[in-house]
């Protein structure tokens, strides 16, 4: 990320955060959830750039959300920043452990093994009385560095906080893409053998990307848990992962911002479809996905942002 684009995007994010004060208040919680899901999609993009698709990101999403709920309920932690840090690190730690298994697989095996792990968590959550079983857990209201906003102010504070996380994450992923490890994504898809014979373990690169994706997805789950004020096992269900795959296709891998624009668009289409055609809203979403794949295979990111070379090496 160049200095100019960093400043521009920061200014844009700040402007959106401030404009949140004038937007109709009902837009904010939906947008916060959409941006939280966008963080999960950003994680999917990190994997996808290296040719990996995970059908089980809900594992880390639920792990982050439940970690926030448990830390708030049992440890009495109220600070939103601290709670999100806890949720994010919990998901990253889980991804680190799962990575030892996942990093040995590619393609459909990687995808389905991810799915299997998330369904194990789903089964555990549904059956565990201490974790609220199928009802889930409620999440108490958070504070922000000592401030205790109420009512609409709380909604706005959470929205602005999420936007800050979005900017930080997008910038970090952009910076990572310019590093050697990040730029090895395309070569990993092209030729694993050559990478091994340059002295680098492809499995360890995959492991690193699993952790990055898990961390971002966990951060998204934490934010959504706080925003909805409730976590339940559906967050770990495979349809949640499917939603992330859906938005990832909508977003494309060309730009980190595509993840958030895609997530907001998805939420908008779903809200619109559910309210206007309650019986057939899935059909609308399906049609949207079909049209994306047919006409915008590069996704929203590719449509809006010009495609950059993976290594960034310009002669």
């Amino acid at each position, binding site marked *: 990320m160049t200095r100019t684009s960093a400043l521009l995007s920061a200014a844009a994010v700040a402007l959106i955060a401030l404009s949140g004060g004038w937007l109709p208040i009902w837009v904010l919680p939906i947008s916060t959830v959409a941006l939280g899901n966008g963080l999960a999609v950003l994680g999917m993009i990190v994997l996808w750039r290296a040719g990996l698709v995970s059908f089980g990101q809900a594992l880390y999403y639920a792990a982050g959300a439940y970690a926030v709920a448990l830390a708030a309920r049992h440890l009495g932690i109220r600070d939103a920043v601290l709670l999100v840090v806890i949720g994010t690190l919990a998901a990253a730690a889980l991804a680190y452990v799962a990575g030892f298994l996942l990093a040995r697989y590619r393609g459909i095996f990687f995808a389905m093994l991810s799915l299997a792990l998330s369904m194990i968590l789903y089964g555990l959550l549904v059956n565990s009385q201490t974790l609220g079983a199928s009802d889930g857990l409620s999440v108490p209201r958070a504070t922000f560095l000592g401030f205790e906003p109420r009512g609409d102010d709380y909604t706005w504070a959470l929205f602005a906080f999420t936007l800050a996380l979005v900017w930080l994450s997008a910038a970090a992923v952009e910076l990572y893409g310019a590093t050697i490890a990040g730029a090895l994504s395309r070569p990993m898809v092209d030729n694993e053998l050559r990478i091994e*014979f340059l002295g680098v373990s492809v499995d360890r690169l995959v492991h690193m990307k699993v952790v990055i994706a898990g961390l971002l997805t966990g951060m998204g789950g934490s934010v959504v848990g706080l925003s909805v004020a409730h976590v339940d096992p559906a967050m770990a269900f495979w349809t949640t992962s499917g939603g992330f795959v859906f938005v990832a296709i909508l977003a494309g891998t060309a730009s980190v911002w595509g993840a958030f624009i895609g997530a907001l668009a998805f939420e908008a289409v779903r809200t619109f479809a559910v309210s206007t055609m309650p019986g057939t809203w899935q059909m609308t979403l399906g049609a949207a996905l079909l049209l994306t794949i047919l006409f915008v295979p590069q996704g929203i990111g590719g449509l809006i942002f010009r495609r950059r070379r993976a*290594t960034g*090496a310009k002669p």
Partner: protein
Amino acid sequence: MTILSAQDLGKSFGSFVAAHGISCDIARGETVGIIGANGAGKTTFVNMISGHLAPSQGRITFHGRDITGLASRKITQLGIGRSFQVAQVFGTLTVLENMCVATAIARAGAALWPMTRRRIAAPEIVRDAQTALTQFGIAQYGDMLANTLSQGVRKILDVAMAAARDPLLIMLDEPTSGVSRQERHDLMTHVMGALRQRGVTILFVEHDMELVEAYAERVLAFIDGTIVADGSPQAVFTREDVRARITGHAPAARAAGGAHA
């Protein structure tokens, strides 16, 4: 000084014996040609040394260290580079980007943490990559996607990437296969020139006996999975079994370092 030593090396796949009883010592700085008919065990030998295949028996010592059965990336890190019969490059990247990847990994030492802190497009990496492409005579292809290259250029790029880490030993598996006769000498001139500039020990598998004569100081002849002759090109090429099974009725050896050196 011996840099690589193989003792009684063998590889079997089930009941099929691909290589057996291979013993040899390679001295530092030598250029060694490996000849043999298809299926004689040449590539199996290279694969075992580079860690692509684990030997079924025997021992490999490199630079005073037992490397038998180590993972290929460990062996690469210890200083053995290799190219492949089918060039292994990154098809959707340009030639310069390919070289940048190899250079960047070499500079970062292949450990994940430094690779996560350093930028791939750092000026010194791009500069070193350009220099390497110039040394290997393929700088003019810098902007082309590796997928669109001719076989010869792909092969040179494969070698250049293997050499990025400044290995002590480099192994070239049929560097000129699939390359037209006219282009072969050009290719070998560029590749051998650049490698000798680096003082690297070279093992190369080659079917073109003229090229073996021109570049090898020593020849290992493989027949039926093992080394049957080891010596100067003249000595090896005049042997009865080598002429019968490998070189056919090719003209007798001329002095090494002759017409094409």
